[in-house]
């Protein structure tokens, strides 16, 4: 926003001060995350910039922490676990969540408010309480410390996001399209896959991404429900931070930041596509 010509000196001072403050806050938001990227190439096992790094000498930098990460058995297992659990939980929560959102969007649905409240409760209840409850329950039915237990727990935590995003997509959904398809002789299943699904797909995918990231980033439930065999990346980072904090964590963090940048891009593209499909101009 350009400065209007009628601004007094005081206005001008405020105009610039305000911008300085804002950029300081943006700096506060981004700097901690970005600073880990150069530090992860540190040749020394410190969490600060060494003199060599500051003077940009090549011997100050190394890939040793990445090598450490890639050659570590437990880190590799945690990556495998994170993806296995994340994908299984996402499939489960996306399927159940999409079906439920379709049901909830029907005007005949009874007790909508109550059911919606129950379905999104995993998002509201503090994680420590969910984790404690699941820990007691899963131990009593002997699925604590199994993949099944962690997947079920993560699926439950992920479903609210799927329900919310898909319901939001269905708000702008033109139901005369499905009626038209039925009128032209398509079976309900065919109508769903040929008409409904392509239109709500952006919502389903972004819901699935949210569910995946929820599982991928989840640690509290993993701490309580998972055993050593099911340790995920955040669980491994947790031990890393608590027990022996080494710059390997920074290498992992850098990789995770890159993954989140990629996910952020995908979600943003999907949002724009969804708005375009529904005839809104992308914002």
């Amino acid at each position, binding site marked *: *926003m350009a400065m209007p010509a009628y601004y007094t000196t005081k*206005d001008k001072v405020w105009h610039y001060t305000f911008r300085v403050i*804002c950029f300081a*806050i*943006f700096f*506060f*938001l*981004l700097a*901690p995350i970005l*600073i880990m990227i150069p*530090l992860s190439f540190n040749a020394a096992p410190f*969490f*600060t*910039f060494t003199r060599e790094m500051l003077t940009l000498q090549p011997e100050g930098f190394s890939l040793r922490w990445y090598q450490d990460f890639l050659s570590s058995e437990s880190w590799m297992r945690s990556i495998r676990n994170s993806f296995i659990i994340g994908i299984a939980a996402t499939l489960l929560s996306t399927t*159940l969540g999409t*079906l*439920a959102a379709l*049901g*909830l969007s*029907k005007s*005949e*649905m*009874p007790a909508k408010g109550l*059911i919606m409240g129950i*379905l*999104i409760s995993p998002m509201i*209840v*503090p*994680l*420590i309480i*969910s984790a*404690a*409850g*699941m820990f*007691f*329950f899963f131990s009593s039915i002997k699925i604590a410390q199994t993949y099944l237990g962690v997947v*079920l*727990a993560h699926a*439950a935590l992920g*479903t609210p996001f799927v329900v*919310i995003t898909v319901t939001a997509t269905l708000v702008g959904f033109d139901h005369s399209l*499905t*009626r038209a*398809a039925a009128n032209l002789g398509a079976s309900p299943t065919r109508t769903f896959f040929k008409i409904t699904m392509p239109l709500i797909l952006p919502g389903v995918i*972004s819901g699935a991404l949210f569910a995946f*990231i929820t599982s991928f*980033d989840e640690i509290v439930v993993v*701490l309580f429900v998972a055993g050593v065999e099911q340790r995920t990346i*955040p669980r491994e*980072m947790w031990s890393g*931070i*608590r027990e022996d904090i080494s710059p390997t*964590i*920074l290498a992992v963090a850098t990789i*995770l*930041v890159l993954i*989140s*940048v990629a996910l952020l891009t995908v*979600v943003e593209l999907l949002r724009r596509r969804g708005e375009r499909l529904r005839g809104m101009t992308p*914002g």
Partner: protein
Amino acid sequence: MAQADATLMDTGGPAAKRGGTEKLVTADGVPLKRALERAQRRRKLVALGLVGPLLLFILTVFVFPIAQMMWLSVSNPQVVNALPRTLEALQDWDGRDLPPEPVYAALHADMVEDLERERRDRLTGPLGIRLNYEISAARSAISRTARQVDSFEAPFKDAFMDAHRLWGQPELWRVIKREGRPLTTSYYVAALDREFDEFGNIVQRDENRRIYVSLFGRTLMLSVIITAMTFLLGFPIAYYMSILPMRHANLLMICVLLPFWTSLLVRTSAWIVLLQQQGVINSGLVGLGIIDDANRISMIYNMTGTIIAMTHILLPFMVLPLYSVMRTIPPSYMRAAKSLGATPSTAFRRVYFPQTLPGIGAGGVLVFIISIGYYITPALVGGQSGRMISNEIARHIQQSLNWGLAAALGTMLLVGVLALYWLYNRLVGADSLKLG
């Protein structure tokens, strides 16, 4: 379902036009009213059938476990199961001096019978653990007695008192009598830093044993501070983004969304890297000669660490609702206020700010709800002074194994959060929860 719909549309239309005198029927001769009802019912069933699987899933995997955990906070089967005869004999006991010999005889009978069970089914183990929550050393009293009880001979009173001194103290008997009921309030009493005195009244604990009330207080205080900080930092940038053209605003939005999408542990470890004594900020300050090497500032593993890291982590939750509200405020209102003679600060205070209140309410309650139950960040960067109630719950589940107390603390936290969420819903409606 869709087919029935189509039939109705074919025949219902013209039929409705003909007026209400003759009986309306669908093409296959069924009265329209009944056909409509049937179609409605079928649609309702379809809707329920779609929601059903998820509802069932959430109820079993999520709602039921939490209800079960809440049940743990009042459930009290240990004494009742292990000592049925003793409890019956204790009924007439006045609770002052030691109980008479028949009570000890009943205790002997109960414990001997328990020995005949298989080892894993024995009830004295849970009994000892349960009584130990109330009196430390009760567990060792029970287990030591259980090892010897087989050889006890009358009079049992002396035999028990020889086995462990606690059996000669009325306090233990008072606890057994008080907890000899299937439901108990004692976990909640303990969670409120209170205890039973010798007359069964609830009194405050000694000052040095009060933990939880002040911990709840600290959790609330930290959540208020964090909410206030996110507001102070979030308001200016949300406002700035809302007055920029969309293209630039979206660019800045990435700065807000990137932390939002970055792993929680990455963000927490980033603050450890920055704030610790050998970290980037301290080393930078030493390098610049601002502080001595010996006087590095401790900014982490205390309350400051928790506040800084959690403000950073929760800031996006404040900015996103604020921004979406501010975008909808027409700039012409401010211009109108100024042209009517308001100074910029009056215009902001009286015209702009009140319109942002829904966003402030939404963001504030959201941040507050999340921070009040936060576990990971306080556990990693909070040290002793930055601990919150969640950390205490986790400690009781994993280390001290007092699950009843953990459940009582958890239930209190849950009720608080649900009340706040209800308030949030009243303020803004759950539908407005926006993601990214």
